[in-house]
């Protein structure tokens, strides 16, 4: 469904991603792993369309979208949860979620109650400003904002980074549930936790120094341990 071919991304003059080809099949959870600074977030951002200087091809549902802007991709069904959450700080929680609906085709401006079942805390806090929430709550909000438009491809960039353990569990639970319930939705997940990645992903890519150095549907600790450890 999503295909990257010979993706090359550079910041100014320096090339940070070279010749990355990967694909995400419909309904699959694909996990992108690797140490810090190897280019995982850059790949995700290139897929979402917020970087300049992207060469190669990005193909989604048979359509080449390499040069399309991010808002076009969002309307095509991309849901994005960036690293650092990037919620709109001065907008209320409710407004943040409803902005997630911008990408959805039906223009009825009401929030699916399902979202609140995943994250009940957001309903309690719906009139608070997004910037006043704690880090974990902001992360939940960012995920809810991406989910509310019923995306066909969900891009999650380290959704559990720097968050208290019980919220990490909640988030992991939600990802698993999306995988089970919404068989139409594909997920591309950047994740550091070995165990969680193993429990949820159908396919793995490991990135090192801007290239894909390992791929497979199994993650065997002996083979990949060296690529992931510091």
């Amino acid at each position, binding site marked *: 469904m999503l295909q990257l071919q010979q993706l090359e991304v550079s910041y100014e003059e320096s090339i940070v991603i070279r010749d990355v080809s990967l694909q995400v099949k419909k309904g699959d959870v694909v996990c992108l792993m690797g140490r810090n600074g190897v280019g995982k977030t850059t790949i995700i951002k290139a897929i979402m369309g*917020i970087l300049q200087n992207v060469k190669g091809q990005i193909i989604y549902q048979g359509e080449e979208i390499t040069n399309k802007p991010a808002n076009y991709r969002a309307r095509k069904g991309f849901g994005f949860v960036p690293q650092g959450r990037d919620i*709109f700080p001065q*907008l209320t929680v409710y407004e943040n979620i409803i*902005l*997630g609906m911008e990408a959805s085709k039906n223009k009825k401006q009401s929030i699916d109650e399902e979202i609140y079942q995943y994250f009940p805390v957001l309903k309690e806090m719906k009139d608070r400003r997004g*910037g006043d929430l704690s880090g974990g709550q902001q992360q939940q909000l960012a995920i809810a904002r991406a989910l509310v*438009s019923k995306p066909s491809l969900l891009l999650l960039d380290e959704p559990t980074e720097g968050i208290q353990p019980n919220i990490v569990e909640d988030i992991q639970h939600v990802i698993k549930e999306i995988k089970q319930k919404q068989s139409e939705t594909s997920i591309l997940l950047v994740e550091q936790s070995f165990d969680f990645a193993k429990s949820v992903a159908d396919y793995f890519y490991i990135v090192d120094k801007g290239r894909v150095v390992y791929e497979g549907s199994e993650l065997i600790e002996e083979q990949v341990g060296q690529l992931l450890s510091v």
Partner: protein
Amino acid sequence: MEAILIQAFNGLSLGSILLLIALGLAITFGLMKVINMAHGELIMIGAYTTYVMQTIFTQYMPAGLFDLYFILAIPCAFIVAALVGMLLEYTVIRHLYGRPLDSLLATFGVGLILQQTARSIFGAPNVGIVSPSFLEGGMNVFGMTVPVTRIFIIGLVVVCLLILAFYLYKTNSGRRTRAVMQNREMASCVGISTRRVDITTFAIGAGIAGVAGAILTLIGPIGPAIGTYYIVDAFMVVVVGGVGMLVGTVVSAFGVGVMNTLFEYWTDASMGKVLIFVLIVLFLQWRPSGLFSLRTRSLD
């Protein structure tokens, strides 16, 4: 005591005009980080639109309808200035996003072109308008006699402010505008067309400047440089209020307006200006980001 009250009222009236001018600047600066030096010329366009409306009414309409011209001139000034603003955004500013210095120079140039155009069309001497009859005379407020025009101006500014606040905080496209203001990249990632938000917001900012121009015709002559007189003060209001905050702009507009009039009353016109600028410089030492600023606990 009464003299001071009258000065305070004049300050309120000056503040409301400053507010209207600064609102347009604040939303364009807050949204796109573009310092629009041609803002003063958008004011001028609004003022000349009013003058043109008056000319049309005196020549082609029955005399009994004359008073209507001003009521119609306000929306017309908004529309004409907004269209010019859109054109400006589309042809010049769009290409200069992220380059504050270049956009400052380019809009300054556009401002000069617009001034010269006005001079070619309407001539260099100032023109004036005849106030509609319902704005003549004075009115008794708390025992003071104040001109009706001033009351009208304050009322109109309040109406504009309410409409703008309603647009920004209660409508879908206002919500989109605020989202782009706060995080442009993420806004486009949720599917907002930032191009469309940019051009609409710029048009609204320009339109408000047009309305300000229409109002200015009530208190002074109309000339090609009418905008330049107010634009510096309006920039001060934006800086003191804090970028991107509506409430900050409101507070600082009335603050600067009232202080300005009071200082001028206690000293004289030039000394008053000096004092207000000294105060602003001191204030910015204390709070560099203005009265109100965006503060959050988002992860950096």
